[in-house]
């Protein structure tokens, strides 16, 4: 019986081969090509060029800044939403889930387009703000950092809520009762018990949002101005319009490196956090 099982199991490996081939040819090779194209004759001159051109360096920093800002906004909006989902039951949970996941299923291009409609000077947002007297003239929401942040946050929010929610669901609610009867007011109970236990989800969400945000291209192109250009747009421009494949590839590799660094950084932070929690059970 065991021989049969092993033979059966091993014959499955063959079936895996086409997928591996497809991925190698059409995923690994293109990526390798990008790297290769960025260093013609093994020269790093395009990297040098990019890193010494102020405009490009500015774009790289801006991409970082925007990603951080969007991650922060998403955490701010997403944490309470995830908490609400973890405490909700029945129809309320269904409603919150649908509100979260429905946008997920609509292509981000269309969602960005919807934001274009909403944020334009004559759009709904400005109309409401003027009608309620908060402002007198329409503010430039589109073609600005605000617009880009709103658009990107809207797309990344589900990626943030889900990991945090997954962790929160598994936090034992009795722990909050235990904190309460031990004399902790709700604020202290949250800060000392609930929040630390939810941190793994927060880390995961932050990694996801930040690294995904680095590579955004369509949304900043539609909602931002030339002052908000991100790396993705630069790459697209170099390859698609300028036909400067070497420079574009070099930028793409830089983006890959930044993404990898972000993963690494978050991994280290998470590891450090675990060490600290283990070592210091008591406060101070």
């Amino acid at each position, binding site marked *: 019986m065991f021989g049969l099982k092993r033979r*059966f199991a091993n014959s499955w490996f063959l*079936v895996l081969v086409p997928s591996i081939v497809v991925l190698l040819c059409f995923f690994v090779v293109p990526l390798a090509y990008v790297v290769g194209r960025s260093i013609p004759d093994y020269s790093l001159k395009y990297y040098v060029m990019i890193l010494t051109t102020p405009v490009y360096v500015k774009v790289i920093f801006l991409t970082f800044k925007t990603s951080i800002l969007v991650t922060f906004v998403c955490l701010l909006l*997403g944490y309470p939403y995830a908490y609400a989902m973890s405490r909700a039951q029945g129809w309320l949970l269904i409603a919150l889930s649908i509100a979260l996941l429905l946008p997920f299923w609509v292509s981000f*291009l269309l969602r960005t387009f919807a934001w274009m409609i909403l944020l334009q000077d004559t*759009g709904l947002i400005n109309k409401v703000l003027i009608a309620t007297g908060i402002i007198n003239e329409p503010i430039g929401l589109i073609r600005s950092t605000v617009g880009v942040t709103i658009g990107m946050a809207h797309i990344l929010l589900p990626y943030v809520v889900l990991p945090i929610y997954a962790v929160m669901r598994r936090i034992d609610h009795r722990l909050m009762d235990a904190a309460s009867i031990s004399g902790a007011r709700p604020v202290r109970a949250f800060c000392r018990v609930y929040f630390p236990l939810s941190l793994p989800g927060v880390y995961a969400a932050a990694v996801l949002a930040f*690294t995904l945000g680095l590579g955004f291209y*369509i949304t900043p192109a539609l909602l931002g101005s030339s002052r908000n250009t991100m790396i993705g747009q630069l790459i697209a421009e170099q390859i698609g319009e300028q036909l400067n494949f070497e420079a574009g590839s070099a930028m*793409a590799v830089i983006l890959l490196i930044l993404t990898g660094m972000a993963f690494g950084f978050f991994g280290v932070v998470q590891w450090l956090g675990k060490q600290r929690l283990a070592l210091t059970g008591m406060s101070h």
Partner: protein
Amino acid sequence: MTASSTIARVVFWLAVCAVAAFLLLPTVVIIPISFTTAANTLFPPVGFSFKWYRTVIEDPAWQTATITSLKVALLTMACSVTLGTAAALALFRSQFIGKTAVRALILSPLVTPLIVLAIGVFMVFSRWGLAGTLVGLVIADTVLALPFVVVSVTATLYTVNPNLELASLGLGAGPWRTFRRVTLPLILPGVVAGAIFAFITSWDEVVMAIFLTTASLRTIPVLVWSQVRAEISPAVAAVGSILFVISALGMAAVRLILRDEQR
């Protein structure tokens, strides 16, 4: 219950509702706008008319794009489901050195910045004569859709009792027959869910498509992209509404399929 905790509670739920509204607002605003009689996308829309839908449906550019999108999405679905189901089964059932690496490889399109992959594919496909072809699009979308299928089928595999396959083999059925009559029906929900994911992924895919399409071969997202950069017209809102309905149906279908699974 103290007053301050009640206030805190109210504020909290207001905030949550605000976030929910933020999430839903753009998703739904394009629908009413698509029915406007005006030529702009001002809200609230003026009047009620199907003219933009007519415009879009009768426009040959949109018609061609729809057919192209449909072809690409269906072919992508077929390819990725076949490859992905096989891969999921292989990864789940067999043990070999480098299995972790293979699994990582299959899932890595999910974590790679799309723009990087897009230009890579563009440059390589240009060399191989695949750029601007239907086949090229299908291949590119399959690479993107594959991880979704694998994840979906794998999740279903956890719920299947492995002894069933062994029983079938023990009774004399060959591996292919076992797969067809025993395994496949049991993992079908996962396969179908994966197929829907694959279809939607290809259907909505825009970044790769921008590079791999030409003036004569365009998908719906590419057409939207070019229109949207030129002007913001209710016609696009009409397209968006149609696509939204399709996505919503797809999501509902997946939830229904997977809910039966969980029972």
